[in-house]
């Protein structure tokens, strides 16, 4: 299954926050537009095999130097709809426990078409 697989036309995910869910050789993969950049992630949560990439994307609650609550509104995190585990779409890493990761895939864009490289 190695090679380049078309996911979508770029126009379909041209706006930040949009995503496309596809299947490549039996593997469900989502491509997210995060702030204009594309990131591909397996639609699989390592917690209990939930459909991770069907969950909402969001920023994250954080704290400032005085430990007062703040919010980082860069919507680069996807929340598993089953149990709420959160992964950074750009790295595939759980934002709370880096030992939990989701496969990521390289993206290529050519002539208005988006490809996943596996």
């Amino acid at each position, binding site marked *: 299954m190695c090679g380049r697989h078309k996911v979508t036309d770029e126009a379909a995910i041209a706006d930040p926050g949009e995503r496309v869910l596809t299947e490549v050789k039996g593997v469900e993969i989502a491509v997210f537009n995060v702030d204009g950049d594309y990131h591909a992630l397996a639609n699989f949560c390592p*917690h209990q095999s939930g459909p991770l990439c069907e969950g909402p994307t969001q920023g*994250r*609650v*954080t*704290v400032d130097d005085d*430990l007062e*609550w*703040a919010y980082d509104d860069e919507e680069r995190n996807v929340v598993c709809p089953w*149990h*709420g*585990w*959160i992964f950074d779409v750009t790295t595939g890493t*759980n*934002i*709370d*426990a880096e030992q*939990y990761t989701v496969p990521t895939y390289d993206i290529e864009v050519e002539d208005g078409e988006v490809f996943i490289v596996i």
Partner: protein
Amino acid sequence: MAQSQRSSDSIRSLADMTIVDTDSHVTETLEDLIPYVERQNPGVVRFLKNAADARRDVYSATRATAAFSQTPGPLDGQESGSDDLVHSQVREPSVKIELMEQFDIDYSILSPGLNLNLATVNHDSTAVAIAQAYNSWLTDTFLDAHDGFRATAIVAHQKPAKAAEEIDRMASEDDIVGVQLPGSGLVPPAGHTWYDPIYEAAEDHGLPIVMHSGNNGASAVFPIQRQWAETFLEDHAFTFPVESMWHLISLVCQGVPERFPDLEFVLQECGIEWLPWLMWRLDDHYLQNSQDVPMLRRMPSEYIKEQFYITSQPLGHTERNDHLASIVEMAGGAETLLFAMDHPHPDFDTPEELYNPLCAGLDGDSIGGIMGETALELFDI
């Protein structure tokens, strides 16, 4: 490899180990403390002198029924005791020294008795006065009497700034190795910013916060659950571990280990068998609810393993020794568990009570750490 194995085997004998009892009670009474209050805080001494019943008129400390009524041991503030060494009152050093010699205890970390209820004192200035009096009495009565005596200095959480001043005062005593913040009846839970001045002072002096659990103050903290316990057995079995779970969850989830990264905590007399389960439970909750606790940068169990310790007594009664050894290993082994005897309370454990089951599953180095070496490092002995 062979040399390492020999080294490990060489300390498997309890007799070769340094034994530190990390929860060794004195049994102070108001009578012991009143002269100190009279000198240091005369404005409130009448509250103590006129108390018909200390547990009612000074503290708010109750039990469901009489404690350990099958056993003749003394309990906090009771005048009566037994001539039996393991059950004697400890208002002067000789009893404790004799006990340490009998059980080959090298160091005893002295804990309060009656003042495990300090958090239940309603009048804040009286609580501060009692804490100061206890610390002075303890220093004068015990600390120079034996090379193996170390102690925690108690603080009244009712006035955190005063508690911090008391930590500053007592930290100059070489034999004070921790700050006792009794967990029984302590409201709000220990993770609240109310306690920050106490934690800041303890961290500045390199002293761990030591929280002894108890059932006497629990009627205020767990009013429904505690008051429906009809007997001491139900009361005692429930309150000690649950109280410590409450404080531990609060401390971790409110980010105290992040706010005070050099501060360590010791939970006393709450059992250890629940700790692996709680770490698993907190980690599971964290991964599903991390946005509730944005101050945390790591899994809750990582903070617990790095900054928290728990004392061993009372051990649960297990059918098989290897079960207890497995639980201890899961709880962090010598990184977490500290031997404690709890003399002179009726549910005390001898060193063998812990040592023997640990031999069913832990290596000699781990057992040596649990019996004393970890405590030597933690308390800078």
